[in-house]
């Protein structure tokens, strides 16, 4: 908050200086409060009015141009390509395929497998991550020594790239000589084959996601917690609620919109999961392991499009992902409506 106050002071002083710098500025001749127009029809006032009308659109246009050119138009083209036979090896030789790509998908075991993998990894990475983040935020919300240091440390994994983080976890999870199996040995657990086993590999990929994003989500929750009015806690305390009850009956309900927000964002992230499983698989990365056990939808699309070279099918996968996201968003909306009604 102090920074915004500084900004205020700063902008105030520079704004005062601004009109003075204008040679023969209209402001000096007319004084504040008088419109600058010498006459209603002069080109100066026309220019002024045109500026007032056009500049907002000019200011927002870069975003819409970039979004339009590099997201919206491609999105439609992806739909177009998904109805065509487009091969990476023969980009000019495109031919109409109708719904063949989609039929291929629906009859492909690998597609359903990747859907299942995306769903399971999404759940086992998102749920613990958000639960831990709430707990962590609750702890960070206490008066702490070196509170900034704690927050920065919790956020360091966020600064680590998917590639770097995954390469480290590959080594930590390696079958022999790996840190994790070695430590499991101490508590008497047999080594797990983290890259080949079905659930082991899914769990391993999830931990990379959890490691990178828990601190980030904790900060989002912390920000929301700090905005909860203190008197809510006071009245709860006067009613005899202990700390745990306060957390349950004051903090959590107040966080509801933020929780919903993080659930939506994490769900979108989980649907698009790509880098972690790709690198976790090493040489067989785009297949999601030898048995496709961690081939997410994102990986399946990359594999079909750029390894196998069927860009038409990859487009169909991309559109299926979009439809799934829309369904998830709709379900989310329904749930949040329900929650609001029951409140």
């Amino acid at each position, binding site marked *: 908050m102090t920074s915004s106050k500084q900004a205020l002071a700063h902008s105030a002083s520079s704004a005062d200086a601004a009109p003075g710098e204008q040679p023969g500025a209209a402001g000096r001749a007319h004084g504040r409060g008088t419109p600058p127009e010498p006459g209603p029809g002069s080109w100066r006032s026309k220019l002024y009015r045109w500026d007032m009308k056009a500049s907002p659109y000019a200011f927002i246009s870069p975003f819409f141009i970039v979004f339009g050119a590099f997201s919206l138009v491609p999105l439609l083209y992806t739909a177009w390509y998904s109805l065509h036979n487009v091969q990476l090896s023969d980009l000019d030789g495109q031919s109409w395929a109708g719904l063949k790509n989609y039929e291929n998908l629906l009859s492909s075991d690998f597609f359903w497998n990747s859907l299942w993998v995306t769903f399971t990894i999404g759940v086992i990475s998102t749920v613990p991550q958000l639960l831990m983040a709430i707990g962590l935020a609750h702890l960070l919300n206490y008066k702490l020594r070196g509170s900034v240091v704690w927050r920065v440390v919790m956020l360091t994994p966020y600064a680590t790239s998917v590639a770097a983080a995954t390469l480290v976890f590959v080594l930590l999870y390696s079958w022999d000589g790996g840190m994790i199996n070695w430590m499991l040995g101490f508590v008497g657990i047999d080594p797990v084959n983290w890259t080949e086993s079905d659930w082991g590999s899914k769990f391993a990929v999830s931990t990379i996601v959890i490691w990178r994003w828990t601190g980030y989500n904790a900060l989002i929750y912390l920000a929301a917690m700090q905005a909860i009015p203190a008197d809510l806690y006071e009245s709860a305390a006067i009613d005899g609620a202990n700390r745990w009850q306060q957390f349950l009956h004051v903090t959590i309900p107040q966080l509801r919109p933020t929780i919903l927000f993080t659930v939506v964002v994490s769900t979108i992230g989980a649907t698009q999961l790509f880098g972690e499983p*790709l690198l976790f698989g090493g040489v067989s990365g785009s297949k999601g392991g030898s048995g496709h056990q961690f081939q997410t939808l994102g990986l399946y699309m990359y594999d079909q499009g750029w390894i196998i070279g069927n860009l038409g099918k990859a487009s169909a996968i991309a559109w299926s992902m979009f439809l799934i996201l829309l369904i998830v968003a709709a379900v989310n909306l329904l749930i949040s409506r329900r929650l609001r009604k029951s409140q």
Partner: protein
Amino acid sequence: MTATQLTPPQTGKKPPSRRERKRVMGAGKQLHAGPVTYVVLTLFALVSLAPLVWTAIAASRTNARLAQTPPPLWFGGNLFKNLETAWEEAGLGTAMVNSVIVAGTITVATVLFSTLAGFAFAKLRFKFSNVLLLLTIGTMMVPPQLAVVPLYLWMADLGWSNQLQTVVLPTLVTAFGVFFMRQYLVQALPTELIEAARVDGASSLRIVWHVVFPAARPAMAVLGLLTFVFAWNDFLWPIIALNQENPTVQVALNSLGTGYVPDQSVIMAGALLGTLPLLIAFLLFGKQIVGGIMQGAIKG
């Protein structure tokens, strides 16, 4: 999206009395942390930092040593040799330069365009502004995967495969950036200032330069840091758009990881090098980045 209402913690009415509040269990909002809190936080901090520290340890050993049990828990003497090998094998020199160019361009453009658009949405009145703002926020729902195939085909058509502008162009400005700047400027920029400048006959560009940019500076810095982190770490599009001859750092790391005869200590050295620039930035600006995420969170 879901906008959390920001209510200032202090309310106008006077609390009963300090002593009264303290008497009631847990009344004050900012409770002091007990030892259990510190223990749990320390554990979390260790889990957060350990993989990074261990990357450095592994990078300082030999491949043979990494395959043995127990894994090395302290530094060896092979660090510089591994760093050198990783640097050469993955072409990290080119990759670093490329990543700086890509992330730098994306950052400057995003901050500039987001501030302009954020200002327009926060303070200017124009037709359809609400609809356009909703549309902007809505675009965050569109996954990047949906654009990848046509973009790849077009860039190939233009002869831009494997060139850096291919990576830069689609991310010159983000919906998050626009929304972030809007939320900041709604509060930080008094409308009277703009009106006063208008009355003085200042053009919109002049207002942007002399009023908006100075007011937005703290948020621009934070957005710049967040954008740089994002652009440096971006993976999906660069790996499709670029090949091994002209990689970003992440693409180069991927090539290290998918080698058929992987030398793990060299891979760790590469991972260390690829992360180092951001870790240094994090040490210097960690506080601002944390503040920025929290700020974006409250209002977003």
